[in-house]
């Protein structure tokens, strides 16, 4: 089951009354949406409000989601329209930079240079998280570092990584998991989670 299939599966569960399934989608995509909105709206409170409204609109519109496009592509369009309506209601123009990727079927372009969400608190948090992740990555054994980088940054499948690293797919899965665990261990103090609740 691919990532898109998992999103569709979560959508299907949400359509059948499982709100927690939709929360998993929000957990997965809300930072990307916030970054997108931060390109159009400057105020952090407004960005949060528009993001929340976008997700609520998406939730209400789930029965109309056909699954032709990826869930994030669909969410992206709702987010752009919500921001446009918000700005229009305040007599502001939509920044043209957000228009470039509003294709019907293509994945929204994520190469936009992210602008920091402009509050000292969030900037500090972003900086701390970034530093923790970088430190964790640098501390990883080479094979774990390569595996997680190929997966998260290059978007390669386990099979492709296995071919590149000349090892079994199961080893790739294990390496990626161990890399994530190492990074998560560094992040947990910043996130206020302990990680010891799991079995």
């Amino acid at each position, binding site marked *: 089951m691919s990532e898109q299939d*998992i999103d569709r599966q979560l959508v299907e569960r949400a359509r059948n*009354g499982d709100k927690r399934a939709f*929360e998993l989608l929000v957990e997965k995509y809300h930072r990307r949406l916030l970054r997108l909105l931060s390109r159009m709206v400057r105020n952090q409170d407004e960005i949060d409000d528009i993001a929340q409204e976008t997700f609520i609109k998406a939730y209400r519109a789930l029965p109309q989601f056909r699954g032709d496009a990826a869930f994030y592509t669909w969410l992206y369009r709702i987010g752009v329209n919500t921001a446009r309506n918000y700005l229009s209601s305040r007599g502001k123009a939509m920044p043209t930079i957000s228009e470039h990727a509003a294709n019907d079927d293509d994945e929204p372009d994520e190469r936009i240079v992210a602008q920091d969400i402009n509050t000292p608190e969030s900037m500090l*948090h972003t900086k701390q998280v970034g530093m923790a992740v970088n430190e964790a990555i640098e501390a990883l054994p080479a094979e774990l570092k390569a595996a997680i980088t190929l997966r998260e940054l290059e978007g390669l499948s386990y*099979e492709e990584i296995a071919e590149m690293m000349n090892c079994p797919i199961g080893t790739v899965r294990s390496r990626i998991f161990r890399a994530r665990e190492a990074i998560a261990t560094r992040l947990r103090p910043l996130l206020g989670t302990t*990680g010891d609740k799991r079995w």
Partner: protein
Amino acid sequence: MKQAHMNATTPLESADELHSALWDGELDDFEARKLLGGMDTAQRELWAEYAMIGDALRGVGTSRSGFMQRFETALASEPTILAPVAARKPVVAPYLWTAAAAAMVAITWTVWTAAPTDVSGQPQWMAQQPATSQPVAANEYQPGAGDLESYMEAHQDFAYAVVSVPDLTVERVSLTEVRP
């Protein structure tokens, strides 16, 4: 095949490792559905951590604390969606039409094959059709007396009386010849 290969190389996989593979979309349908349908709080926390790690690696940035809490509160006040299941098309009608069509074919075939045929193999009623059909008014048809008489003769074994055509008088007839 791919899954079998994975299972063969990592027999002692942990549940967390399965969630990591789920996040990457690398589990088969059965396992993925099972995990997605039974996530507890700790597993959801793991999901959130993997989301943050991926976003941090890609430089997406972070959200302000409390965003998810606020959203969950807002979502809780939304009516739960129960999307209607698309009505299934009735499956009986096509079979009924099929049965009716089959019955028509069977009747046609029976009539066709049971009818007496001429030398060309066609039923006689077809062979006797005129080459060009011309409409005939009902009052124009005058059957010849010979036609009707020969018909009546052929069927007189079953008749009590023979009706003579011109004057419609009734006569008793006997088929047995009286010999002196």
